[in-house]
């Protein structure tokens, strides 16, 4: 099973990129299963099921962060895709909190960014970009060639080892190299590990403490004038 995990801010064109990839993979007799992980609303699964007749699923992360949810369900999802007779599992995730990344060793990690999103975006998305294998830049026809090139260099400055692929997801231009990368990637093994180091600390808010002020919290905390420090055992 080839595993592809695709992350990126909302509305950058993840779905449009994956649609072209699913079509081109099908044309090569490689059937994809599609899993969408989102916080509260998604319909990509239904669209793809209708359009390509492939097995699809969605998971609302709800109480969990999407990346956390991804870790929980990915093992099951690989077995599901296999049972459905697919050769590729594509996971699309919103990857929202930007402290960790959804990618795993054993799967191709793709981040989708739009060329129109401003020159500082690459600096803001953290490990979602720096731990990816490929950064796909969409909406390239909406900016000048010069801006496209400067955007590319802003990505390269933060994430020098990430390959950059510019695509026009409207017309499917530039998708072939992405398909080739999926095909060339080794099959996902048994014991998958999250890529990179998750952020340290337990989120006291996630466990239900609502009091404002670091004095009421424990673990990694921070005050306005101090860097983070550790409080507690």
């Amino acid at each position, binding site marked *: 099973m080839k595993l592809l995990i695709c992350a990126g801010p909302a509305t950058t064109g993840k779905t449009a990129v994956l649609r072209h990839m699913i079509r081109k993979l099908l044309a090569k007799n490689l059937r994809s299963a599609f899993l969408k992980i989102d916080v509260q609303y998604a319909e990509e699964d239904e669209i793809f099921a209708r359009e390509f007749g492939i097995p699809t699923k969605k998971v609302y992360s709800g109480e969990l962060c999407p990346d956390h949810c991804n870790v929980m369900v990915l093992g099951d999802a690989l077995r599901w895709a296999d049972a459905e007779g697919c050769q590729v599992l594509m996971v699309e995730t919103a990857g929202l909190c930007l402290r960790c990344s959804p990618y795993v060793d054993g799967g191709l990690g793709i981040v989708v960014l739009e060329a*129109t999103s*401003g*020159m*500082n975006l690459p600096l803001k998305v953290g490990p979602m970009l720096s731990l990816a294998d490929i950064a796909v830049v969409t909406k390239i*026809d*909406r*900016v*000048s*060639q*010069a*801006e496209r*090139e*400067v*955007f*590319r*260099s*802003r990505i390269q400055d933060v994430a020098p080892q990430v390959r*950059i692929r*510019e695509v026009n997801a409207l*017309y*499917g*231009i*530039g*998708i*072939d190299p992405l398909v080739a990368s999926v095909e060339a990637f080794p099959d996902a093994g048994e014991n998958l590990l999250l890529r990179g180091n998750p952020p340290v600390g337990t989120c006291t808010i996630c466990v239900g403490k609502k009091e404002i002020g670091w004095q009421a919290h424990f673990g990694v905390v921070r005050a306005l004038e101090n860097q983070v420090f550790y409080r507690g055992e």
Partner: protein
Amino acid sequence: MIESITILTGHGKKGGTEGVERIDFKMGDVVSIVGPTGSGKTTLINDIELFADGTTPTGRRVLINGMPPPAEYRDNPACNPIALITQHTTFLSDLPVNEFLRTHARIRSQSPVDGDGLVRQTLDFANQLTGEPIIPTSQMTELSGGQTRALLIADATIICNTPIVLLDEVENAGIHRTRALELLRRYRKIFIFVTHDPRIALLSDYRIIMQQGRITDVLYANDEERECSVKVSQLDDLLTRMRDKLRFGERLTIEELEGVL
């Protein structure tokens, strides 16, 4: 060294092959692409800039020196032999002009460059094309349509300084068009103009005719058109002079038309 660039044609919007099988652009050629709005002019130069390999919606292929271009042309701006001046009249980049240009100069060059020098030269060039000088510390997003176009042309010429330059309707958006042509033609490159402007079309060695996404024909300038070209340029200069007079609140006289009409 780039000597030629070739388009192996594909199909139009409604299918159907194009009017010619291939077009070879040779170093030094000045070419126009003409056709009504929506006929696929921008799509054609985008195909060239993307080094189309049969996978774009037109099915066209682009060769450099008769060969498929190496991947690095696309992946490394320092190796890209093409500068494209798009139809955009606004920038979306939230950077100051000087920082943007310095970054672009750095990545477009294969060796360390005098960034500040290039930025200065680029701004000097741009300011010859626009009535409203560009302030280096202003944000890219604040530039007017004319300033944006002027900066795109200057950036392509000074910073990219590539052997192939593609220009999409430079005549629009308030720049000194005649001055731009004059400055550009000092360089020996392949120039491909998408244009509705008779003056630019007639200054070209040949022009590509487009209709419904298809290249229908390639027309070479003949002697009669070359004669027309001189007259058309005079007419165009006349109109420019008159336009300026009107803009500055002056009156026109019938004498101004003499010798031209």
